[in-house]
């Protein structure tokens, strides 16, 4: 990018000037009425002259025809065919020759218009600013293209209109020249088609924006003098254009420069904020439109140059031979590229240049390291396109890029060793082959009868033969299989694919979307593409960018094709990602909002007492789903402490049922099973295990879930330490080295630690807060390190249930029995005596409410079962079960 030092101009001319190296930048496009009028007049007269000259051209042709006709009549055909009529002295010939002169002028104008570069070529300015020895002055206005000049000059018109409106409003006339504001330039730019297409991409109407801007700028009132920051716009636009290596400053570059012009009333910033158009977004869309234009030019150039590439096995130099084995076990990528059968590749031009440098520097064999979906195949395809049009260094020219199908060789049923060698020999003998081996690490795994792997055979072959091989692999597989293979790094030069930045990924997706739009007859809103990149980054694990974003966009295009409006919006992208990951879409749906707002009430119907715990969980979940929670930690994490059977696990189950809606989102782990020294292996697995452990499998399948860790204090110390990382970073590394994302997981750990202290505290009449403080100070340190306790969002102390609460629990359990009987067609009611009996006899202070279920099962269910078998209860019965004199009676 051009580095400009912008400064105030103390001399004549535009208030600003800039410098970069030895090049001084001035601006000759001041917005004084005189200059603008002169330029408009110049353009008008030029157009008029052109019209006159075109008329003369037509007149000349007619004169030529007339001269030929008259000559033919007078002297016959020979006079015409010998061209004598052109050289005779006649009015027609005279008019014809005059028109020829004007034709030459028109031709000169046409050549000038199509000239490759300008005198001050913007694209070369950056380089010249470093290398320039002589001082040079460049007028930035001359770097504007015609539409940009038109838009720039028209901003005066809007300023004059604004002044007239203000004069009407304030009922005063002004003789001063109107001040040009950034809003005037914006209104002028909104009339340009490329600017309009940018706003169209974000789903905003240009008319609405223009209306808002006009109203704002009127409200802003009167201004005097040219504002300094407005004067900076041309230079900012120059920098924007140099960022993209644009050949000229076009209206989109002026638009990108606008937000940097901070006017007193911040109108531009307010308007752009209102339509959610940040500077970054503006630049990204402008870059998209620019690169789309470039892609068109590249494809046109490619189609011209690729015509010369032979599409048989024989090269232009006639040195190669047919390759029978290679054709059977390989795929000619240059031939596919010549006929545009490969996906259009974009985004790896920089990596391709680096590869050329490596290839021309020494041994041509390269191994490209990059994860699946990060662009390895794109790089190979881009190379194929370049080779098809011979836009490559000489070592790659007049050659075929052939991809070796390893699976074909391995699955051929023949001796793979001899097949591979035969294929390689053929490639060498042909002399015009560049071989591509994707996932070369697979060769390391294929061991032949001789004990050597196919990779060893390949390396041995390449050490003694002249053949260029380009291989690909992942970073992990390179480390595991290739780096330590004998002589591998002597034969292959490693090259690691550059990680694309978010904006580069966006650009690659935008270009791909342009192709999808043509194929599927749909339209992508820019925000939808942004969502696809951002949400797939966050929610889709195990794949790389830009592959995962592109997969979402391809699916979105296919769905939009079937839809009536054919527009891919953010909502569609969210739906697709939500379906893929089982994570609720980012925008809260109405029913989920209602659930979150009334969560305490909904949970209270099933959880008796423990208001503090229910409130803590509800508030934590509301915080997380409203977007306020930090994205780097689990959704929410709680530690529930209390005696057994008081509702700790029940809260978790209730939450899973109410909020997640299905059991499959809840994973309950009894941490006492992970107590021993092998606890961590049991939890996370090992690299040599085939299957994933329950927690790993669950998180992979349902990243948005509830993880219930019962009896947390019984887990081994290694596991406790593991949760330090999980609660801090929201990630977990499995035994196989996979990194799992727990930032959408709700974690609830339950523990009986300190139960005795809690019960003692209750007996002493202490408040829950005091009991909690005592626990923290005296007891909990024996079970959990303080840093772990601090990482939980809330530590909730559960008190033992009161008698009333036990009765309510009994009633709830009886309601469960009622539901079971209802399924058999029996409507049974239980009196309060029954509930009290259960509460008194079943509750155990040591075991809490847990035995209630067993008591009901042993006594009531047994009673009901007997009645059912005796046919005293049948379908349609409505009964009341009471307790009389210690026995259950049917009423």
């Amino acid at each position: 990018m051009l580095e400009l030092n912008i400064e105030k101009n103390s001399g004549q001319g535009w208030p600003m000037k800039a410098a970069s190296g030895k090049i001084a930048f001035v601006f000759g496009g001041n917005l004084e009425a005189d200059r603008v009028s002169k330029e408009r007049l110049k353009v008008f007269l030029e157009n008029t002259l052109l019209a006159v000259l075109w008329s003369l051209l037509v007149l000349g042709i007619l004169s030529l025809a007339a001269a030929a006709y008259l000559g033919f009549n007078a002297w016959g055909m020979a006079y015409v065919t010998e061209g004598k009529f052109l050289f005779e002295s006649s009015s027609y010939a005279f008019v014809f020759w005059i028109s020829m002169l004007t034709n030459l002028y028109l031709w000169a104008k046409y050549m000038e218009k199509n000239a490759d570069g300008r005198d001050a070529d913007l694209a070369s300015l950056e380089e010249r600013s470093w290398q320039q020895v002589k001082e040079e002055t460049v007028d930035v206005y001359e770097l504007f293209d015609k539409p940009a000049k038109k838009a720039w000059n028209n901003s005066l018109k809007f300023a004059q209109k604004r002044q007239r409106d203000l004069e009407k409003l304030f009922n005063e006339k002004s003789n001063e020249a109107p001040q040009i504001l950034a809003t005037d330039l914006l209104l002028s730019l909104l009339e340009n088609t490329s600017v309009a297409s940018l706003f169209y991409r974000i789903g905003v109407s240009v008319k609405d924006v223009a209306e808002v801007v006009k109203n704002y700028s009127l409200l802003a009132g009167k201004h005097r003098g040219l504002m300094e920051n407005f004067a900076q716009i041309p230079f900012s636009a120059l920098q924007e254009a140099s960022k993209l290596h644009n050949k000229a400053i076009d209206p989109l570059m002026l638009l990108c420069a606008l937000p940097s012009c901070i006017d007193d009333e911040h109108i531009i910033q307010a308007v752009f904020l209102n339509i959610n158009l940040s500077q970054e977004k503006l630049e990204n869309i402008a870059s998209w439109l620019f690169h789309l234009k470039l892609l068109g030019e590249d494809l046109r150039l490619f189609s011209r140059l690729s015509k010369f590439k032979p599409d048989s096995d024989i090269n232009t130099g006639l040195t190669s031979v047919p390759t029978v084995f290679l054709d059977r076990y390989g795929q000619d990528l240059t031939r596919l590229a010549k006929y545009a059968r490969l996906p259009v590749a974009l985004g790896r031009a920089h990596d391709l240049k680096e590869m050329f440098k490596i290839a021309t520097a020494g041994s041509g064999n390269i191994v490209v390291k990059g994860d699946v979906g990060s662009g390895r195949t794109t790089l190979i395809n881009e190379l194929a396109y370049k080779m098809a049009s011979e836009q490559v260094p000489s070592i790659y020219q007049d050659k075929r890029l052939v991809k070796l199908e390893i699976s074909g060789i391995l699955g051929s049923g023949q001796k793979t060793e001899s097949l591979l060698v035969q294929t390689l020999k053929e490639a060498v003998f042909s002399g015009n082959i560049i071989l591509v081996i994707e996932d070369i690490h697979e060769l390391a795994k294929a061991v032949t009868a001789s004990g050597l792997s196919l990779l060893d055979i390949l390396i041995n072959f390449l050490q003694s033969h002249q053949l260029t091989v380009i291989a690909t692999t992942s970073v992990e597989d390179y480390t595991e299989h290739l780096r330590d293979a004998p002589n591998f790094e002597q034969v292959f030069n490693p090259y690691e694919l550059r990680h694309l930045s978010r904006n580069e990924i966006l650009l690659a997706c935008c270009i791909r979307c342009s192709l999808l739009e043509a194929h599927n007859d749909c339209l992508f809103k820019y925000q939808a593409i942004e969502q696809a990149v951002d949400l797939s980054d966050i929610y889709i694990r195990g794949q790389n960018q830009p592959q995962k974003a592109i997969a979402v966009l391809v699916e979105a295009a296919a769905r939009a094709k079937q839809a009536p409006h054919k527009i891919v919006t953010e909502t569609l992208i969210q739906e697709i990602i939500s379906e893929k990951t089982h994570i609720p879409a980012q925008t809260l749906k109405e029913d989920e909002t209602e659930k979150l707002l009334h969560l305490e009430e909904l949970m209270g119907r099933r959880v008796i007492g423990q208001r503090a715990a229910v409130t803590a969980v509800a508030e934590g979940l509301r915080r997380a789903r409203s977007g306020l929670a930090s994205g780097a930690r689990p959704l929410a994490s709680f530690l529930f402490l209390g005696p057994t059977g008081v509702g700790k696990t029940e809260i978790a189950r209730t939450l899973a049922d109410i909020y997640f809606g299905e059991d499959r989102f809840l994973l309950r782990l009894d941490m006492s099973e992970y107590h021993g020294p092998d606890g961590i292996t049991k939890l996370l697995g090992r690299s040599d295990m085939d299957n994933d452990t329950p927690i790993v499998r669950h998180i992979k399948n349902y990243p948005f879930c509830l993880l219930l860790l019962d009896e947390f204090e019984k887990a081994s110390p290694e596991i406790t330490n593991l949760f330090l990382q999980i609660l801090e970073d929201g990630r977990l590394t499995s035994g196989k080295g996979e990194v799992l994302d727990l930032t959408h997981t709700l974690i609830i750990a339950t523990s009986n630690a300190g139960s005795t202290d809690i019960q003692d505290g209750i007996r002493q009449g202490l408040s829950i807060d005091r009991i909690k403080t005592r626990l923290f100070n005296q007891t909990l340190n024996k079970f959990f390190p303080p840093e772990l306790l601090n990482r939980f969002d809330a530590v909730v102390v559960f008190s033992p249930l009161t008698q009333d609460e036990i009765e309510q629990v009994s009633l709830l359990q009886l309601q469960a029995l009622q539901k079971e009987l209802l399924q058999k067609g029996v409507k049974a009611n239980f009196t309060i005596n029954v509930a009290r009996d259960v509460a008194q006899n079943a509750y155990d202070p040591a075991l809490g409410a847990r035995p209630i279920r067993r008591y009901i099962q042993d006594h009531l269910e047994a009673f009901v079962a007997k009645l059912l078998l005796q046919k005293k209860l049948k379908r349609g019965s409505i009964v009341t079960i009471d307790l009389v004199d210690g026995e259950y009676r049917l009423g």
Partner: protein
Amino acid sequence: MQNFPLNLLTLPIWWYTRGLTMVWRWYKRRTNFALQSTGLALFARHMWEPLYQDYTRSGRILSFFLRIAVLLYKTLVSGLSLVYYGLFLVVYACLLPAVLVMIIFQILNHA
């Protein structure tokens, strides 16, 4: 071609400076394209290699003569392209004076 309305008057100067440069660049592009289509440079690079990897003595001898023949053919075709496009260059150079001469001729004859 910067200043209106002097363009018509500066046409002759423009024609033999900036215009000629543009036409020369066009000529170079067209001839490069023509050379690429014949593959002359690529073919010449492999001049001393036998055709189709035939490294036998007879193959080398045959390749040499065949390559000479093909090279001559490609050179002829490339040469014709150079001449063909060169003609445009010559026509361009002669066109303006020719037109001016004819106009003067017409004026003198009418006078």
